[in-house]
């Protein structure tokens, strides 16, 4: 069985990578201007800034500009953020022993966007540089996570329903704070609106670099705790008796997943439900072992957000939907389905 599962999961991982690759190709080719894959490959091969030689025709320069300044950073940011959200979702679900936990539902994403919005409105982001935006998001994410956790934990026990309710309450509190800031900081309202809807349209190479720097080390740390998370998903006390350093592992996982979420949210605003649906789907296919679940959720999460963003920018041309709208369109009904199912099971 273990052998079988390894084989199957290896194949699934390969399928996920293929899915990601196809998504990347589609993401580069499709958009308000569709480019044939040949042009895309040529533009990629020539490198950035690359109309190259003197014989470069006008359309090729255009293709190169579209690829290198618009689409490439955008699809990369989608992959990075999708991976980060999905892996964080896996971690939070395992940690809270609840398939309904995710960075969005628990208010971590909202907290992160409050941090970013404060950065924009107060101008802190400008004063401290682009690297500080994720840091502010991180502070917000962590604050929200700590608040939600504290509200729902009594005598070392975290009640599932209280957790969800606290997440909703903290999220709406944060939404109203953001609205409040928008009214005060009228001159920045456009920028802030962009944050609150969740969109990848402002992706740039800088945001890709910064978010990569926050996300990748975070995901590595998280995957290193996969075994401990397996044990923790049985509950904190059983995990203690199995020999897990419960408090420190829990802290590390909570902090790091918040950091990973913040690294993406800082540039796109909160994007919901990727961290909910992807872990679920992958768990159904690959089983609950976090050693498989985390890397696979990363791959499939990256692909999923990539496709969602592709949909967002091609569904109603020439207009662009915020990708958060697309993910919520699919995610919210799914969440309700989970809720109904867990009610039926009487948990």
């Amino acid at each position, binding site marked *: 069985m273990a052998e079988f599962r390894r084989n199957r999961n290896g194949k699934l991982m390969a399928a996920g990578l293929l899915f990601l690759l196809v998504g990347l190709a589609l993401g580069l080719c499709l958009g308000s201007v569709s480019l044939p894959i040949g042009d895309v490959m040529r533009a990629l091969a020539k490198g950035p800034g690359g109309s190259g030689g003197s014989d470069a025709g006008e359309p090729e320069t255009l293709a190169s500009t579209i690829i290198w300044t618009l689409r490439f950073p955008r699809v990369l940011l989608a992959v990075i953020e999708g991976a980060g959200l999905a892996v964080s979702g896996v971690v939070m679900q395992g940690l809270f022993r609840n398939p309904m936990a995710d960075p969005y539902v628990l208010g971590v994403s909202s907290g992160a966007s409050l941090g970013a919005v404060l950065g924009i409105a107060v101008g802190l982001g400008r004063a401290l540089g682009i690297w500080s935006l994720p840091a502010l998001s991180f502070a917000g994410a962590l604050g929200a996570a700590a608040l939600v956790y504290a509200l729902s934990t009594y005598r070392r026990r975290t009640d599932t329903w209280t957790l969800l309710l606290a997440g909703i309450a903290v999220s709406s509190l944060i939404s109203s704070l953001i609205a409040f800031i928008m009214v005060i900081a009228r001159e920045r309202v456009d920028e802030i609106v962009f944050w609150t809807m969740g969109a990848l349209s402002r992706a740039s190479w800088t945001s890709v670099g910064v978010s990569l720097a926050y996300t990748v080390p975070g995901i590595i740390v998280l995957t290193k705790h996969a075994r401990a998370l397996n044990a923790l998903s*049985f509950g904190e006390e059983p995990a203690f008796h199995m020999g*897990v350093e419960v408090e420190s592992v829990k802290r590390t996982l909570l902090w790091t997943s918040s950091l990973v979420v913040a690294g993406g949210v800082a540039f796109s605003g909160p994007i919901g439900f990727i961290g909910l649906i992807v872990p679920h789907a992958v768990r159904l296919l690959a089983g609950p072992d976090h050693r498989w679940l985390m890397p696979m959720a990363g791959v499939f999460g990256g692909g999923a957000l990539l496709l969602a963003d592709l949909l967002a920018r091609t569904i109603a041309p020439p207009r662009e939907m915020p990708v958060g709208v697309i993910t919520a369109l699919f995610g919210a009904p799914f969440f309700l389905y989970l809720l109904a199912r867990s009610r039926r099971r009487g948990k």
Partner: protein
Amino acid sequence: MRGSQVLVQDLVVRRGGRDVLRGVSFEARPGEVLAVVGPNGAGKSTLLKVISGYLRPAGGAVRVGGMDPGSLPPYERSRLVTYCGDEPDPAFAFTVEETVEMGRVSAGPRHPGDSPGLDLAAALKALELTGLRDRPITSLSSGELQRVYLARALYQDPSVFLLDEPTAHLDIAYEVHAAQMIRDLSGRGKTVITVVHDLNLALRCADRLLFLKGGELLFAVSPGELTPEVVAATYGVEVHVISHPALGTPLVTPPIGRKA
């Protein structure tokens, strides 16, 4: 073998502003099986959880293998002692085998002096889980789940096993099994301290019975020393202690419907 494997001295545990355990002292040698018995709320589970290091005492001392379990690094602690009791409903569909494997989650190099321990197949077999090894634990009955958790503790293979009502959800066949498992552990030099409700089960598998009431240790007796007075003082019921007609071991039978 060495002296005491578990040493509990003047233990005081306070929870929610009240003493759950007061002045409890006893020790257990390697290979010894102790049964902790007493009425509900006597502090039996608390006692096991303090020995496991999960709860910290307010006074007195606990030593397992000469060390304070509450301040040991997790890996060392998991090699020394484990607690097995009721757990929250499983949240995810790990298989039986994956669950049992988690007994070694803090795996590291095994110490040279460690007992050879059981391999995974043996741990599964000991609780007759071999046929269930690929089943998701979310589909198991509470009795099956209890066997899975026992197998996981077995696979963890520490020196001291703290079993909190290991037979609570088991039918009589598996109760016999669990009793046999406890005897086997003892035979391998493991110390077992188990909370049980069934006095006769305690008499069958334990070397000594600790009678706990209201947080105090009233008696520590071997099965042969058990008298109706001990039971009456602990539980407030009058019982007969007779000799088992077939085995000659002591047997407790409550008179029907009469209170002391």
